[in-house]
């Protein structure tokens, strides 16, 4: 079938400079997409819009929303969703999966080391600065052995496909990575709207995430506990990811609690229930380090549990992820990932790292200041795509402002070449047609004691604004269902 006969994609414009995931260089549909292309092509744009609107409405009805923080206000939005899925070839997935596990394990060993002997620093492989000037290094974690030896139980590794056809890791999120509920909801929505397409493709299920997460969390229970009592703690219903917190608790079949539902007595953690106090053994916490215990960290935290850290230090409760993991998802640590993987695992990195310039190094700072227009400048300790400047999108004045900021606190910034993220056909409301949009992929890796699990799928995030490279939901991104095919 040619493009002209395909109603849905007839007006799809391909920019030859961009790496399109469904077409090869000659403009032929990739074999993996050909059947899907035909199936979708049977529909008119009108039908497609109807289906898409229904899917969107179901998101709203289920309350699958998130909040956007602005200087003046917060807004509730649904995560824009697109019914045209992204397919990942089994061979490529194998690389992503092994690469994500490798990184997560290496980061776990790195965390153990920086909170114990600090050998990697003593041997001069990474600079002392990485812990000394990191806002996320917690001195209180020094010497603590987390149950099962695991720090980053849940890692969200963000990968992109570059125009060389290779996958690159953009960042490792190992504080409280979010987004997994969207993966599952996207799948559900697509099944509801177009269940027929699943008959033609052998796709891995994503709905087993919660049971695997619970299984692995149970492997890192505190010593002496038989069947652990697991809970999910949330900052509350006003948090941007509250839907996900409640979704995970519900699908794991465990309680969703807030700080005020728990208390600590004699260094054990209890949950208040109508039957009296119930001991809690494993806490999947979706509260940032600084807020988990007002007696140990931020004293004005109203969402934490007083005394929680002492219970953790005594080994009476597991916190997932462990406090202090943020030191390893600092963007400055990212730049040493190839060395970190080699040092702890004696392996070559499976996934590529993007070359990074450290503004803390004088010669690299000089290069960055001279090439701002062709670089992405990122603050090292911000999450969610805040504070990122993309050089070729800046005005002259903006470039000067960025230069000034970087010069004032070089340690706070790193810079990378502007990558060309792959594009995927995405339905755009304004033009009522499919257009090329940049995508990335957030993968979810769970580490347990001697076992690990990678969700076969992930969250494909779409930068909805034309030409935009920032895919975070807080920056106006959307998402797609992501299929990992069985061989």
């Amino acid at each position: 079938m040619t493009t002209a006969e395909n109603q849905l994609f007839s007006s799809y414009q391909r920019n030859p400079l961009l790496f399109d995931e469904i077409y090869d260089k000659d403009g032929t549909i990739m074999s993996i997409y050909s059947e899907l292309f035909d199936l979708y092509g049977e529909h008119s744009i009108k039908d497609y819009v109807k289906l898409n609107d229904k899917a969107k409405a179901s998101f709203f009805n289920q309350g699958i929303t998130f909040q956007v923080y602005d200087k003046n206000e917060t807004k509730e939005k649904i995560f824009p969703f697109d019914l045209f899925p992204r397919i990942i070839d089994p061979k490529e997935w194998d690389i992503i999966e092994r690469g994500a596990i490798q990184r997560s394990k290496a980061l776990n060993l790195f965390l153990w080391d920086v909170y114990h002997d600090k050998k990697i620093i003593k041997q001069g492989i990474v600079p002392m600065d990485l812990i000394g000037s990191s806002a996320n290094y917690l001195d209180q974690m020094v010497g603590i052995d987390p149950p099962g030896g695991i720090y980053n139980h849940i890692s969200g590794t963000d990968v992109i496909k570059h125009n060389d056809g290779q996958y690159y890791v953009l960042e490792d999120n190992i504080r409280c990575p979010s987004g997994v509920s969207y993966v599952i909801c996207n799948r559900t929505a697509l099944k509801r709207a177009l269940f027929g397409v699943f008959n033609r493709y052998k796709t891995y299920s994503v709905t087993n995430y919660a049971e695997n997460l619970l299984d692995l969390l149970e492997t890192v229970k505190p010593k002496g506990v038989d069947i652990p009592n697991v809970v999910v703690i949330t900052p509350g219903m006003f948090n941007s990811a509250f839907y996900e917190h409640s979704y995970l608790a519900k699908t794991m079949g465990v309680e969703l609690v807030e700080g005020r539902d728990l208390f600590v007595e004699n260094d054990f953690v209890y949950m208040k229930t109508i039957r009296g106090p119930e001991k809690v053994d494993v806490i999947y916490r979706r509260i940032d380090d600084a807020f988990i215990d007002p007696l140990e960290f931020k004293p004005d935290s109203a969402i934490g549990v007083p005394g929680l850290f002492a219970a953790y230090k005594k080994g009476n409760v597991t916190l997932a992820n462990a406090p202090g993991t943020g030191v390893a998802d600092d963007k400055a640590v990212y730049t040493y990932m190839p060395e970190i993987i080699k040092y702890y695992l004696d392996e070559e990195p499976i996934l590529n790292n993007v070359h990074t310039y450290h503004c803390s190094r004088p010669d690299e700072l000089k290069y960055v200041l001279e090439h701002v227009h062709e670089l992405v400048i990122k603050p090292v300790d911000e999450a969610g795509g805040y504070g990122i400047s993309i050089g070729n999108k800046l005005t002259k004045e903006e470039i000067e402002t960025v230069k000034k900021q970087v010069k004032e606190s070089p340690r706070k910034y790193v810079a990378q070449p502007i990558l060309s993220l792959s594009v995927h056909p995405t339905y755009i409301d304004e033009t009522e047609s499919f257009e090329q949009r940049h995508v990335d992929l957030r993968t979810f890796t769970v580490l347990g004691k001697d076992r690990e699990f990678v969700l076969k799928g992930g969250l494909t995030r779409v930068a909805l604004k034309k030409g935009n490279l920032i895919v975070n939901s807080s920056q106006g991104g959307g998402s797609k269902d992501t299929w990992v095919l069985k061989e």
Partner: protein
Amino acid sequence: MSLEYSITYTAENTYENWVNDAHWQFLIIPQKNDNQEFIDVQFNNSLNTINQFSVNGYGFRTIRVHPKKKFKQISFEAHFKLIKREVNPFDFIEEEDISQAYAHIEELNFKVDFEAFLRNTRFTTLPEKNRDAFLLDKNISLFENLQALNEWTYTHIYFKTDVTDVNTVLDEVIENRHGVCQDFTHLFCALARQNGIPTRYVSGYLHQGNSLFGDSQMHAWAEAYIPKIGWIGFDPTNNLLANTNHIKIAHGKDYTDCSPLKGVVYTTGRNETSHTVQVSSQQQ
């Protein structure tokens, strides 16, 4: 020879309106170490709530109190009795080759091991223009340099109460040249760390001699690490080396790690808090 010390700590908190929920964490128990041995720890609160003995994130003993009913007034009373070995602060052997210690503190392994106590915190960051206020004289030993720094700090600022508080940073202390023990200690730590010497903030009690009442306040001083010798206590507020009368509770990077009382109290309106400390000693 050893001395027996008795310490009484009391605190009283009064609130205008009912307090529905509150948590306190006291960091006031003398540390058990080579020079300090316990005989007794007693702690009571006026609401007869259980007192939970625990440790904080740095491993120092704490007492947590969480009343189970609402209240407007609560008081706490602690009694500690301990035996202190009489310390001669000069009781160590200095290396003959003084240059070795300077070489040692330059080593990467050393810097990594003591990283936390070389790091500048909010309270131990010197204003840019004062970074060179005290420089090591490598013709004398590290210990002698630290003694000189102790004296420098003592003479540089004047002891004056109620002009600084727990939020005062070094910019103000240096500008106004007055403060209390914690300001002296922060300044000492900042300058020692600036010179590459690991230094920690120490909180504790000071026994000010056997006067009739033996009244004291909680006190702060510093400990600096000298290679091959260990941590040595310097009290820049009094230009002294820490001795038998310095009863240590905890140490950390600065005051924040050692604050004697942390609390989370849910109430509205005004509140009044006060505390007293008494230290007395008798020879054994």
